[in-house]
C-alpha cells in the first residue's frame, strides 16, 4: 500500500511540472520584486543599490501619496457598498420572495461573470456626454433633470464616484449570493422560536440573523478588501486613472512608475507596499473578528 502511495517517481511526475511553473512565475518574482525595491532606476539604466531610500522617498512622492489616498477612499466606499447592498438584497430575497428564488439568484449573479473591460466600456458609454448623451444623461434629460447632465468621466469628483458606482454594481450580485447562502442555512426553528418570543424586525436581525451570518460577513469583508486594494483593471478601462490622477490607484501608480517612467526599483517598492497592506489588513480583520466573541 505505502509503496504504491509513496511512489517517488509518480510524485515527481505529478507535482514537479506544476511546482516549477508556479515557483518561477509567482514565487521567485515576489522575492525578486522585494530585492528590486532596494534599487533605483532599471536594469541596464542607472541601476543602483540605494538601501531603504525608496521606502523613505515614497512618503514625499506626491503621486504615490495621492494614489494611496485615492485607493483607500475607494476601499472605504466600495467595500461597504458591495457588502452592505449585498446584505440588503439577500435579506429582501430571503424574507419577501417565495417563488422564483433560484431565478433571482441566477439573474443577480450575471454582472459577476462579465469581463471587467467590457463592463467598464459599457459604463463609459453610459456616462458619456459628448458627442452623444449616454444612457444616464439621456435619462436625466427624459425626466427633466437637465441641470444634472454633465460629463461624468471628465470631472475628478464625478469620475471617482462613477468608478465606485460601477464597481459596486458589478459585485453586489456576488455578495448577495454568498450572504443569501448563509441566510438559507439558518435553522428555521431558530427564527420561529425568536418570533414566538416576540422578536421581530430590527431585533430579529441584530440578535438572531446577524450572529448567524457573522463568519460569512467577515469572509466577504476580506474578499472585498483584497479585491478593492488591487484596483487596476476597472479604473484603467473606465478612466485610465484620470482626469489628472483622480482615479489612479496604487497598482496604477506602480504601473506608471515601472512602464512609463522606467523606475523599476521605485515601482517595486510601491508593489511591496501594496502586498504589505494586503497582508496586514487581512490579518487584522481576522484577528479582530476572532477576539470579539
Amino acid at each position, binding site marked *: 500500500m505505502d509503496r504504491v502511495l509513496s511512489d517517488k517517481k509518480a510524485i515527481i511526475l505529478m507535482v514537479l511540472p506544476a511546482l516549477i511553473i508556479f515557483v518561477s512565475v509567482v514565487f521567485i518574482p515576489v522575492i525578486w520584486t522585494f530585492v528590486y525595491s532596494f534599487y533605483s532606476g532599471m536594469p541596464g539604466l542607472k541601476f543602483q543599490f540605494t538601501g531603504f531610500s525608496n521606502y523613505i522617498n515614497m512618503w514625499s512622492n506626491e503621486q504615490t501619496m495621492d494614489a494611496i489616498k485615492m485607493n483607500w477612499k475607494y476601499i472605504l466606499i466600495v467595500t461597504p457598498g458591495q457588502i452592505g447592498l449585498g446584505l440588503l438584497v439577500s435579506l429582501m430575497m430571503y424574507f419577501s420572495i417565495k417563488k422564483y428564488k433560484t431565478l433571482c439568484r441566477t439573474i443577480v449573479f450575471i454582472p459577476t461573470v462579465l469581463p471587467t473591460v467590457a463592463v467598464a466600456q*459599457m459604463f463609459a458609454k453610459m456616462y458619456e456626454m459628448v458627442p452623444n448623451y449616454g444612457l444616464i444623461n439621456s435619462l436625466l434629460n427624459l425626466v427633466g433633470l437637465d441641470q444634472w447632465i454633465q460629463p461624468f468621466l471628465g470631472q475628478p469628483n464625478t469620475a471617482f464616484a462613477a468608478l465606485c458606482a460601477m464597481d459596486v454594481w458589478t459585485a453586489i450580485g456576488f455578495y448577495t449570493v454568498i450572504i443569501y447562502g448563509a441566510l438559507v442555512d439558518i435553522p428555521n426553528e431558530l427564527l420561529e422560536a425568536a418570533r414566538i418570543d416576540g422578536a421581530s424586525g430590527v431585533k430579529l436581525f441584530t440578535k438572531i440573523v446577524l450572529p448567524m451570518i457573522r463568519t460569512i460577513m467577515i469572509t466577504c469583508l476580506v474578499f472585498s478588501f483584497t479585491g478593492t486594494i488591487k484596483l487596476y483593471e476597472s479604473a484603467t478601462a473606465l478612466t485610465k486613472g484620470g482626469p489628472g490622477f483622480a482615479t489612479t490607484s496604487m497598482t496604477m501608480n506602480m504601473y506608471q512608475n515601472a512602464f512609463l517612467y522606467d523606475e523599476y526599483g521605485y515601482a517595486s517598492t510601491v508593489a511591496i507596499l501594496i502586498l504589505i497592506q494586503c497582508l496586514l489588513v487581512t490579518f487584522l480583520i481576522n484577528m479582530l473578528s476572532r477576539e470579539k466573541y
Partner: protein
Amino acid sequence: MEREASVKKAFSIIGKLLIVIFLFIEIYPIFWIFMSSLKSTQEFNLTASYALPAKLHFDNYVKAWYQGKMNIYFKNSAIVTIVSLFFIILFGTTSAFALTKMRWKLRDKVMKIFLSGIMIPTAVVLIPLYSMYKGANLLNTRLSLILTYIAFGLPLTVFLLRGYLTSLPDDMIEAAIIDGANIYQVFSRIVLPLMKTGIVTVAVIQFYFRWNDLIFSSTFISNTNMKTVQTGLLYFSDMYGNRDWGAIFACISISVLPTLIVYIFLNKMVIEGMTSGAIKG
C-alpha cells in the same frame, strides 16, 4: 393580529418591488449594450440612447469583427484560454492528487507554497515577469500569457480540488491498490472519474478569470496581432470609440457573449465555483 398580518404583507410587497427594481438595474445595461450594438450611426445622433433601434443593423458586427480585428483578438483569446485551461486542469488534478492522497515527506510544505499564491496581488509579480519574458524574448507571444495564466490558475485550482479529494474515501483507493492497480491506474481510472464535477467547476471559473484578464495581456502584449479580446477592445475604443458607437457596442457584445453563453448553460456550477473560491479561501 390582523393588522400585523397586513403590515407584513405590505413589507413583503415592498420587498418584492425593490427586488424587481434592483434586478432591472443589474440587467438593463447589458440589454442596452446588445440593443445599441444594432443601431446605425445616425440613430446615436438623432434619438435618445435608451430608444430601441429602428432597424437591426448587423453591419456593426461585421465592422467590429473585421475592421475592429475582433476576429484576430477572439482567436488569440480562445487559443490562450483553452491551452492554459488544459494545463491548469492537467497539472492541477495531478498535483492535487499527489498532495492529498499520496504519502511523502515534503507534502505539507509544497501544499503551503501553492496556497500562498492565493493571496499574492498581481502587482507584485508584474515587473520581474516583464523582465523575465523580455529577456527570454517571450514578449508579444501567446506563450508568455499561457505560462502566466497556468501559474496564477494553479493555487485556487489545487485548493478547490483538494476539497473534492478529501471528501473522497481512501477505502476505494486502497481497494484498487490491493487489486493490483498501480498509482497511475488509481489516478486515471478511479480518482479522475470521481472528480468530474470538481474539474468542470474549476475549468469554468478559470475560463472566466483567463478570458477576462486585462493586466497581464496589456503588459506583455503590444503587437496588435497578438492582442486578446479585452486588450483589443480597449485599443479599439481608444482609436474609434468616440466616432463609431455602433462598432464599439458590437465589440463589447462580442467580448461579453462567450461569458454569457457559458453562464446560461452552467450557471449553477459557475455560481458554486466562483463563490466557493471566496467562502473556502
